[in-house]
């Protein structure tokens, strides 16, 4: 416990370092302009527009409910995949720092996660805007908005742990990123992002695929993120319980893996 505390303290002591690197990444990504930010949001917006067009034409889905639901899911999914896939290389891209100066290894996956988190937040603000545009300004309750604070904390911890796990695994197996890309592509269809609530219900009842949706580790936090913009209300307590349990498990796995590998990473870069 004492070791953990001093480790976190060491991370905090280096905050100027990793925060300025995150700022550098953000600046490089958006080129310091509003247009840059808009450009980077094109992907979820275009995806949402296309899918909404398709679904409302074929399945006659009501756009007002479906658009915020879909875009929240897509934004979340983009955070998960970029954090994990960029996380794969987090130790390799930081090799120059690792070889020069001792610092807690967890700061490099943290940099990756914070970069994607910034992007996620911009996307989520758009989602809130979309939801309010369709349902009226008072749609999302204050409790619903406040519920996002613990949700974002969970999401950040979950993302950090994912980046650590993928980073360590890639140090061990070089070709992991490639496989992960395929894996996430498959997982996308096993995560209720494109499927509306009714379709999810019918999928869950099918014996062949239902269990995959139930066991999918990316679902609990997705629900926490989507409920406020879809229903305007804070998520159920049971959703928080599931999300917290999942995050804790992932964080513990990442922490244990990091503890055993922290000193060995440098020899495998």
């Amino acid at each position, binding site marked *: 416990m004492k070791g953990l505390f001093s480790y976190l303290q060491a991370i905090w002591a280096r905050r100027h370092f990793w925060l300025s*690197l995150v700022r550098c990444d953000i600046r490089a990504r958006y080129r310091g302009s509003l247009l840059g930010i808009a450009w980077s949001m094109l992907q979820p917006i275009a995806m949402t527009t296309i899918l909404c067009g398709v679904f409302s034409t074929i399945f006659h889905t009501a756009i007002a409910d479906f658009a915020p639901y879909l875009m929240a899911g897509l934004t979340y999914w983009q955070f998960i995949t970029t954090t994990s896939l960029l996380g794969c290389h987090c130790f390799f891209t930081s090799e120059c720092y690792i*070889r020069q100066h001792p610092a807690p290894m967890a700061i490099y996956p943290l940099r990756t996660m914070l970069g994607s988190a910034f992007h996620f937040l911009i996307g989520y603000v758009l989602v809130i805007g979309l939801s309010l545009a369709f349902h009226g300004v008072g749609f999302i309750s204050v409790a619903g908005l406040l519920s996002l604070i613990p949700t974002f904390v969970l999401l950040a911890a979950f993302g950090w742990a994912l980046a650590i796990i993928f980073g360590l695994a890639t140090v061990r*197996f070089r070709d992991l990123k490639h496989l992960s890309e395929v894996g996430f592509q498959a997982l996308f269809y096993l995560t209720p992002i494109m499927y509306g609530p009714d379709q999810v219900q019918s999928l869950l009842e099918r014996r062949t695929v239902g269990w995959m949706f139930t066991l999918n580790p990316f679902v609990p936090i997705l629900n926490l993120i989507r409920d406020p913009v879809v229903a305007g209300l804070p998520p159920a307590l049971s959703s928080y319980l599931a999300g917290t349990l999942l995050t804790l498990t992932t964080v513990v796995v990442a922490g244990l893996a990091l503890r055993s590998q922290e000193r060995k990473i440098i020899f495998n870069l």
Partner: protein
Amino acid sequence: MARIELNSIGLTFRVRRHFRMGLKEFLLGQMFRRSRNPMLDVHALSGVNLRVERGDRVGVIGHNGAGKSTLLKLLAGVYQPTHGTMAVEGKVSSLFDLALGFETDASGWENIAYRSYLQGETPRTVKAKRDAIAEFTGLGDFLNTPVRYYSAGMLVRLAFSIATAIDPEILLVDEVLSVGDLAFQEKARQRMHDMMDRAHLMVMVSHDLEALAKICNRAIWMDHGRMIQEGPIEQIVAAYRASAMTVKAA
């Protein structure tokens, strides 16, 4: 109080014999067949005992691959020992792998900040010494351009200026006496000497025995990861020279 103490330090790491392994090779080659790419134990350091007190200037000599730079990285905390105990007390500044560690898309100014933060500085202390660092690099307007457009020499100048802008208690140096062009070399040498004067203790790796003899008072001789001799600099340098001569004669 600056102090270094190593007690029977060993550093062993495992690497693959041929290439780094992917999941594909692991699944194909490890689970179903006997490995064609076995693990290899590298004993980079073994049984190293060393005490360095305030005022000591220690030169490290030995052949290539003797473990000199590994020892330095261990003292810097970049490597952790796998055996033995060590204590390094004091603010460490290390001068090695100088050209590494830049964000290539960021400007020289920004990299000054990043690198200083990594060394433990804060925005306030960086602000105070930024201009002095910039001045010393002599890069002028180039500091506004991304580092990716710098030449190798310019990178080293920038790195050297940042790394030497702190007042360390423990100074670790690995063969950086020849930095940049002629004019900068002279400036760099002067600054190195200033730093060495101010540092409480210093450990320096070099193949330049003349320079070591001038700067250091003690020396250690490394061979195959072991410390084979330790003592006053003249004595060790003489012994090392003699051994190199016998190898040549034989």
